């Protein structure tokens, strides 16, 4: 409503605050990983890493580092009490079977219908590499996206139709950006919060979308 646009840390804080108590969550590589810094013990959130673990703890340092214990970003991590290990097929079955409550992912673009693009720039010489992105997109009960609202050249990344190759269709539920938070609903894209100088009207102009206003 007022103040400055959200910093990345503030975005992560907002996402963390919206994760319900007891949720099972997968935090994507990159910015989404920072959400873990703001989860409280009272939230009792269990983190999943798709390379085969539930109950992942914070990043490992010094003597804690064990090359056999890494996250999906290949960073050394730690165990929390009550964690468990499983193989890759079981891990992705857990994801695709709809058992995770929330996946938090970065994005190049999200469409008004909730289509997600985050795996391929579409550049003709780019080497395609998808990892677990497509599985995360379709597997979790809710997909939260964290991204800057605009590209470096100022174009909106929430769009009517994707221009980047899709990762998954109609899979995103909510988008956290520095200027606003958006919900993807059957009625359309809803603005729930604005930050800094953004208004629902300025966002409509930027995105070209008939955004619904549910800012308080």
């Amino acid at each position, binding site marked *: 409503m007022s103040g400055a646009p959200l910093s990345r840390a503030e975005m992560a804080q907002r996402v963390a605050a919206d994760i319900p108590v007891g949720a099972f969550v997968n935090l994507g590589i990159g910015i989404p990983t920072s959400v873990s810094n703001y989860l409280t013990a009272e939230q009792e959130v269990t983190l999943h890493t798709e*390379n085969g673990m539930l109950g992942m703890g914070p990043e490992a340092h010094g003597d804690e580092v064990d090359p056999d214990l*890494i996250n999906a970003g290949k960073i050394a991590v730690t165990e929390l009490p009550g964690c468990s290990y499983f193989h890759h097929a079981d891990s992705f079955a857990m994801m*695709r079977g709809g058992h995770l409550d929330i996946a938090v992912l970065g994005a190049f673009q999200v469409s008004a219908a909730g289509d997600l693009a985050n795996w391929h720039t579409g550049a003709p*010489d780019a080497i*395609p590499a998808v990892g*677990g992105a497509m599985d995360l997109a379709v597997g979790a009960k809710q997909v939260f996206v964290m991204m800057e609202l605009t590209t470096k050249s100022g174009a909106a990344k929430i769009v009517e139709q994707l221009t980047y*190759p899709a990762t998954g269709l109609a899979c995103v539920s909510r988008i956290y950006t520095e200027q606003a938070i958006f919900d993807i609903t059957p009625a359309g894209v809803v603005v729930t919060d604005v930050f800094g100088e953004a208004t629902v009207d300025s966002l409509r102009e930027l995105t070209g979308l008939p955004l619904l206003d549910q800012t308080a």
Partner: protein
Amino acid sequence: MPSKISDSVLSAVSVIPDRATVMIGGFGLAGQPQALIDGLIEHGATDLTIVNNNAGNGDVGLALLIKLGRVKKIICSFPRQVDSHHFDEAYRAGKIELEVVPQGNLAERIRAAGAGIGGFFSPTGYGTLLAEGKETRTIEGKNYVLESPIHADFALIKAHKADPLGNLIYRKTARNFGPVMATAATQTIVQVSEIVEVGDLDPEHIITPGIFVNKIVQVTA
């Protein structure tokens, strides 16, 4: 019964012929059978099809195998990395064929091969470039892509401990692709840190039963 224990890496991998399809376990360095890959390089088999999550890092292991021109095709989920320059170069030069598979489809297709499944409808990838040309179907209102099993001639994996029957346990997230790859290959060759006596592994804790394992080589770190 001939022992499953090989006394050298080279003798274990020397059964791999040219043109074989070889699965290699590991996600990042965790679970990567480094010694077996080095042995495969030394052995010299070529025109290989490799199934791995990635396409090599730096200048060793799978990256070196690619640099040496031994890999005809790679099936993986994430070839592009900051240090995948040997793959990048071979790919851009048209010297290596690439099949990019979403990571969960990769794991499930490998499992399907081991489980005798002819194909399965996966929700992953529907409506994307990676499903182009594949059969799709709407089931109970949800969209799926038909995915096929990935079989291999050999699987090279790393485990923590083995007994002489080939029963395996893994360590932490180094488990990753090992258990499913072991089921999907005609022959599975395992690099382990320790070989224990038959009966030393608790039957409740065994992750890969020995039926899936053909050769074991102890490699101490």
